[in-house]
């Protein structure tokens, strides 16, 4: 009997404590200084991964037999702008990739220009932040070659990718999709500007005419519908200032985990 009572009191006590903890948790989640502390883990993760990646290892490459039967298209699947519709209608013949910002020679490259450059083909796994993965075969020009062609100006630290799609409708343009990587990832051999997937021209749902592949990071870094690459020394002035659409909405800039 005594045990029954004490156990019961224990259970009541713990459920009261749990309720308090729960409402307390949501308050903690929204507390700015708590978030500042939690975000320290991102620096620790990036620092340790970069330390262990000092020898510039490649992401695993698979074989044709490993390809996902259906590669899930995620995010924007059809950019909703007149400009994009016009470019698509012309089979992207009028599309240009602009490379500017902190570069010696700003570039404006057509799809044909990019296809004429040395290419790399890789069968890699695409990991979504949500948890799913798909394996696809990508062909494109290494970003490093494009950046070498433009020539980096001293002080350039990040490549920012501007996309044709507005993922969230907004009046101030803050819903525009954009992403950024630092020069370590920009010059990694598997970081390519891809115009072909599974042996065919990149489909609209997957980011036609050109998307980024940055294989050692999660899917949201792999910006689709590329229009412009800007070299910068910081991204404080860009929209939310965190260096990417999802970063501005609370996700990590370093998406290696």
């Amino acid at each position, binding site marked *: 009997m005594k045990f029954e009572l004490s156990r019961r009191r224990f259970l009541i006590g713990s459920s009261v404590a749990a309720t308090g903890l729960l409402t307390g948790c949501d308050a903690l989640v929204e507390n700015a200084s708590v978030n500042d502390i939690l975000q320290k883990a991102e620096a620790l993760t990036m620092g340790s991964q970069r330390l262990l990646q000092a020898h510039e290892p490649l992401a695993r490459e698979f074989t044709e037999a490993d390809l996902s039967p259906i590669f899930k298209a995620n995010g924007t699947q059809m950019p909703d702008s007149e400009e994009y519709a016009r470019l698509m209608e012309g089979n992207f013949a009028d599309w240009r990739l602009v490379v500017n910002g902190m570069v010696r020679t700003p570039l404006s490259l057509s799809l044909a220009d990019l296809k004429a450059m040395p290419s790399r083909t890789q069968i890699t796994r695409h990991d979504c932040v949500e948890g799913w993965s798909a394996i696809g075969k990508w062909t494109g020009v290494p970003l490093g070659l494009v950046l070498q062609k433009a020539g980096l100006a001293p002080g350039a630290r990040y490549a920012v990718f501007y996309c044709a799609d507005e993922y969230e409708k907004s009046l101030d343009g803050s819903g525009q999709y954009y992403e950024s990587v630092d020069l370590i990832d920009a010059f990694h051999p598997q970081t390519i500007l891809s115009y072909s997937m599974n042996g065919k021209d990149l489909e609209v749902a997957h980011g036609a005419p050109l998307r980024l592949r940055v294989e050692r990071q999660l899917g949201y870094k792999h910006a689709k519908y590329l229009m412009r690459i800007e070299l910068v020394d910081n991204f404080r002035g860009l929209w939310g200032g965190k260096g990417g659409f999802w970063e501005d909405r*609370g996700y990590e800039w370093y998406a290696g985990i």
Partner: protein
Amino acid sequence: MTSVTDHETAQPRKILFYRHSIAVRLTHWLNVLCLSFLLMSGLQIFNAHPDLYWGQYGADADHSFISIGAVSDGDTIKGITRVGSISIPTTGVLGASTVEGELTPRAFPSWITIPGYQDLASGRRWHFFFAWFFVINGFVYLLYGLIAGHFRRDIVPTKDQLTPQHLAHEIGEHARLRFPKGEEARRYNSLQKLTYMAVIFILLPLMVLTGLTMSPGFDSIFPWLLNVFGGRQSARTIHFITASLLVAFVIVHLVMVLVSGVWNNLRSMITGYYGLTVETDKETVK
């Protein structure tokens, strides 16, 4: 002395003995904190894609072998948990549960996720913070266990505890919820030791390794992890199953704490001192 005087002078006496060192107590409670937050933020992350696959890849169009989802049912929805080809209705808890008075599609219910509402970015922030905390705390514990002899002394079963007769006896005693008394209660019993060993050396390291295998950055550093676990999606599935086993362990652990003397157990994990009744011989006690 003779056996007669032995028998006459032997009498039960309650003693407190120092069972848990400060290092064990501290790392234990920090581990409780870490695992609680890791579980709740982990379920938040799981909710973002509540399907588990086997192999290198897996997404909507691929066959999942565990899935927690909602299907429409007339005007309302019902929660369905599917394991292999077996579907179980789990409305109210898994697949569909009440959020602010309304039945909502959600794999795990809001009362067990951090935050309570759907927010993958926050879930990840909490998960990775406590993952680091857990790994550092775990390393401190492992180092202490090795250097201070805690594993050898307290965790690894002794030869006499591993004989078939002893094990059979202990299983029988456990089934009757009878626990060792007196001198025998000074050490963990063998089932307890084997369970703790499985948690410390298998389940918890498996959580860390399968977690890291889900990281594309870490996979480039240690690609062999993908071979060990059969792919990122297999690793994700093992991560989930191992977490479930840890939850099962914690439930059994708490029940054992309750039925084998809750205050004594709690006191020993807080102050270090565990009380037990020993038959003492006056002549041998100084």
